[in-house]
């Protein structure tokens, strides 16, 4: 069975390699392409199907007065509990309006008023509305615009390709290696710079809003390349994930629902948010609403599906179909008419606030490595405001594209590390070649349960330490994973093996940082340290030294 699988390697040269074809990755590729350099865009999925397309409610930008870029920046910092990267946040607020215009030029048409003014709505903390939107499928239309623009510019895209490792020449990133999912062919990309835009890690949790591709590949590869991660303990749980059937467990119900008058009630019909946040009610911040729902259900006030109700059945059907047409469809597909009965919802793992520690140009601490989007950290601090995620990818995707092009132009000679290529190929194919071993999805299911039970909405030292132990054990098990087929064509088990290893490293980073932060702040709620402490207005950096995860506390970047 060894034969051709191990030996043949295809080599491709480019100036800039973009890994990940969601909002941030495509935006980076568009900008990089303008430099005239060679750009290759890689995605695990068919072009256009990345997780960005699942964003529903909107995208934040100061498009309509009285909102201003300063206001946008200010609430982003407040929403992030003051540990955001202030420098990045300032630029973010300032540049978002121009990025909204870019997207319009790529084809996106945002919802309008009769006058031609943008239709905007207010999410949590938005005294002045910032969310521009396209129905409740803003992310999908945005993806379509980006894909259309990429087609217009004839950006070279490789579908369904899995990058498994960044390649280093001494301390510099000089490319990446991976496999074509269609036929397991090994391909090495030699690149003068690499932009990582590989998204989040939702799949390591049992319940998530995320697409199946979000397996923390970028965090794991960046750590391996010597990059620093920041704020990894900050994991956002969206308050409203679908909870009425196992098939759609965790699927997102947009915040736009609550912001337009959706009401949360427990099994007794009580509008329970009045107990927890009597002023903000349903529009408290995401971490706050998620904790409230958790507590209601924990107190036995949930439905038989361990969920609470979200009502829009007091709206007219016209309003429902105009404001949240996709939410209506999502429930209709499971046999629920939300114009007549309430939705069952429960918090669902939604977003990694943390990630690669970049500066305002998407530059990491590793030469040649740039990053943008959810795989990065800093912009959101301890809690992300709704509408800031797909927004952030546009600002820093563009910036990473510019910076990577500038860097690439200066690079003359690079050489590929033969030993790394050989070792990585051996690692990849060991999952196929070994005689017997553990079934990959068995490891994955255990990890999902551990993360959901012990590294969730509420945390404490005891459970975090248990999680640490469990994950460390799973890492050992994962080394023995074995694909159930040796087939080369579409070996999903092989992709699972590689993704599971990445999820385990990401999980470890989250757990280590969560153990270290002995306070509660934003999405990180410690039952044993419930107070938010001034002395903890700091960031935690995670890095990998000789294969071991190390943490460090640093000052907030202002």
């Amino acid at each position: 069975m060894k034969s051709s699988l191990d030996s043949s390697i295809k080599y491709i040269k480019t100036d800039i390699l973009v890994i990940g074809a969601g909002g941030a990755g495509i935006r980076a590729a568009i900008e990089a392409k303008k430099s005239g350099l060679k750009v290759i865009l890689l995605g695990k999925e068919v072009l256009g199907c990345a997780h960005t397309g699942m964003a529903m409610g909107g995208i934040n930008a100061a498009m309509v007065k009285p909102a201003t870029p300063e206001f946008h920046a200010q609430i982003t910092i407040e929403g992030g509990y003051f540990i955001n990267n202030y420098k990045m946040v300032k630029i973010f607020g300032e540049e978002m309006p121009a990025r909204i215009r870019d997207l319009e030029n790529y084809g996106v048409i945002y919802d309008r008023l009769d006058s031609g003014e943008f239709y905007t709505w207010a999410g949590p903390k938005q005294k002045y509305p910032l969310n521009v939107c396209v129905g409740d499928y803003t992310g999908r239309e945005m993806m379509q615009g980006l894909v259309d623009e990429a087609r217009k510019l004839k950006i070279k895209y490789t579908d369904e390709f899995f990058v498994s490792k960044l390649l280093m020449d001494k301390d510099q990133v000089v490319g990446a290696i991976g496999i074509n999912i269609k036929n397991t062919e090994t391909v090495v990309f030699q690149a003068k710079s690499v932009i990582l835009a590989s998204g989040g890690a939702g799949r390591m949790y049992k319940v998530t809003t995320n697409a199946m591709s979000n397996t923390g590949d970028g965090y794991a590869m960046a750590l391996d390349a010597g990059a620093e991660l920041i704020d990894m303990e900050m994991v956002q749980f969206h308050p409203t994930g679908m909870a009425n059937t196992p098939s759609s467990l965790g699927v997102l119900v947009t915040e736009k629902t609550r912001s337009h008058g959706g009401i949360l009630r427990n099994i007794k019909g009580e509008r329970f948010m009045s107990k927890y946040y009597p002023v903000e009610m349903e529009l408290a911040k995401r971490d706050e609403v998620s904790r409230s729902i958790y507590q209601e259900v924990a107190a036995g006030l949930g439905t038989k599906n361990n969920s609470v109700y979200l009502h829009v059945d007091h709206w007219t059907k016209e309003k429902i179909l105009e404001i949240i047409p996709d939410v209506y469809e999502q429930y209709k597909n499971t046999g629920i008419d939300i114009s007549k009965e309430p939705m069952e919802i429960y918090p669902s793992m939604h977003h990694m606030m943390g990630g690669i520690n970049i500066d305002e140009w998407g530059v990491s601490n590793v030469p040649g490595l740039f990053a943008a989007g959810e795989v990065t950290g800093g912009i959101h601090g301890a809690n992300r405001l709704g509408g800031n995620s797909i927004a952030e990818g546009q600002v820093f995707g563009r910036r990473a594209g510019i910076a990577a092009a500038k860097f690439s132009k200066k690079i003359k000679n690079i050489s590929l590390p033969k030993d790394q290529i050989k070792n990585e190929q051996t690692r990849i194919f060991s999952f196929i070649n070994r005689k017997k071993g553990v079934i990959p999805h068995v490891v994955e299911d255990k990890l999902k349960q551990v993360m959901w039970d012990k590294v969730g909405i509420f945390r404490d030292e005891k459970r975090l330490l248990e999680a640490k132990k469990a994950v460390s054990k799973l890492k050992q098990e994962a080394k023995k994973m074995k694909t159930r087929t040796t087939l080369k064509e579409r070996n999903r088990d092989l992709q699972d093996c590689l993704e599971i290893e990445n999820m385990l490293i990401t999980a470890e980073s989250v757990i280590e940082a969560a153990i270290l932060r002995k306070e509660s702040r934003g999405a990180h709620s410690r039952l044993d340290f419930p107070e938010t402490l001034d002395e903890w207005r700091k960031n935690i950096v995670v890095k990998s030294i000789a294969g071991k995860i190390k943490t460090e506390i640093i000052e907030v970047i202002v």
Partner: protein
Amino acid sequence: MSSPRRRGSRLKLHFMKIKFLIYRYNSLKKSKFKYDSFEVPYNKGMTVLDVILYIYKHLDPTLAFRYECRQGICGTCGVMLNKKPVLSCSTQIDSTIETQMIEPLANFLVEKDLIVNLEPVLKRYQEIKPYLDKIHKVIITKKKSNESRAFRKCIECANCIAGVPELEKTLKGCIDPMSLVKIARYVTDPRDGLDRKSIAKKGGIDKYSEELGKKLSLVCPRGIPIDEAIKLLKQ
């Protein structure tokens, strides 16, 4: 499986199995296509994707299929369920049908099992210039934005292409319905400056009948009125 101790009626529901015939083919090995039969335990609310995942996880790890979002929005999980194109993540199984069939999208070359080769279709798609071009500066009002709104909902799942057997017969060589929707999307966008209707004319839009348009509208999982796109482009 644990020994059944529950009451009769629940027991029956719990252990009800549905037989699924799954299309199998491997283009890289040029294998002969066949149908494999799998028995899958039925749960209320189960989707086509649940069936596929159950088979992959418990019965056959070589099964090839695509999925991403589980939300009906990424457009990657289209298959034929009992000869009709559906998004597998948003379509529940009808438990009254004893034997059911899951196949790759019709009118496509099959790459492997339930995965189709999108390349030829996307190559043709590129020819219609599927992007905003020769941009005019126009202020878009609610009214203007509503004109293209329905067509902008396309997620390129290609279910429409799979939904017309005519595509292989009377419409052979004609432009496909996914492209028509994209053209309609830009024709109704006041900013676009290309003569797109002539692309549709050249592509044989006149061969699309009104009934076919209506049929296509019913196939679209995003509820796009493809019949209106056809009407518009024929004008």
